[in-house]
């Protein structure tokens, strides 16, 4: 198990929009990342209910997927979203943080495939799920025949 939580926390702090939303890395390593976004009234999308905007959940899921990719064992240098599909199962509950968990389940030399879910109170009661493909840039490595497929 490689724990990239510290490294990726510092990386996330260097991303202006992640900082603007107050995103934090709960854990990251071996291609799995958990990130959290605090509730903030400035992010409300439905003024009648106080529910945060779906765009915030999109950003949390996208960021969480990216961190999962960067935490993978072969340590990609960078990643960029190619596509992302999000299903919104229910609105987020007002007043509480949203947490997301992403897993990079396959990585080739160029592309990482990632799945993610987001929830508020209970991980077993997800509010959204996502699947995406991410372009990756891998570090030039000695020919060990290991890593990328």
């Amino acid at each position, binding site marked *: 198990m490689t724990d990239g939580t510290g490294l990726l926390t510092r990386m996330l702090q260097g991303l202006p929009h992640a900082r603007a939303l107050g995103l934090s890395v709960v854990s990251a390593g071996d291609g799995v990342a958990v990130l959290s976004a605090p509730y903030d009234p400035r*992010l409300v999308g439905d003024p009648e209910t106080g529910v945060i905007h779906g765009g915030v959940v*999109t950003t949390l899921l996208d960021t969480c997927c990216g961190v999962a990719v960067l935490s993978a064992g072969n340590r990609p240098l960078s990643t960029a979203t190619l596509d992302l599909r*999000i299903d919104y199962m229910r609105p987020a509950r007002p007043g509480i943080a949203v947490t997301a968990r992403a897993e990079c389940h396959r990585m080739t030399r160029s592309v990482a495939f990632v799945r993610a879910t987001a929830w508020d109170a209970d991980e077993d009661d997800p509010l959204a799920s996502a699947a995406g493909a991410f372009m990756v840039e891998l570090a030039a490595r000695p020919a060990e025949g290991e890593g990328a497929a």
Partner: protein
Amino acid sequence: MSGFEPVHLLKARRDEALARLVDRVPYHAFLGVSFQRLGDELTGRLTYDDMLIGNPAIPALHGGVTGAFLEITAIVQLAWDAAWEIMESGPDGAARIAAGGFPPTPKTVDVTIDYLRSGKPRDAYARAQVTKRGRRVANVRVEAWQDERARPIAIAHGHYLLRDAR
């Protein structure tokens, strides 16, 4: 009513309704999203700010920001279409919208975002096309671009639940 309404009043009334519809959502102001109107067609504008950056090395807009901008444009277009229908139905409808009596905000069911180019550190624009507006669900395509309309930075399509309040 609208046939006899002086054009400057008509325009002001519609622009005020749109501003009210957009401004009541805090997240729009947080991201810096506004809308321009030509008739019933809207163009979203994401005003650049340093805090929208997701990759400082390139630098590029955060993919989530681009995705959120596309989602906002789709939802506001649907909400505006619904408000427009009420507003233009006659004096009662116009009065209802003028008093802020908008139909409920459409809810995203699913959205697929394709990223085509990295978003540069400058303003972006977006337009939504309602492919099909059903009784309960609408299918919407959205395109965002920056300097050149013909070179989109991202496109999205999604389904939105319309909660009819009438």
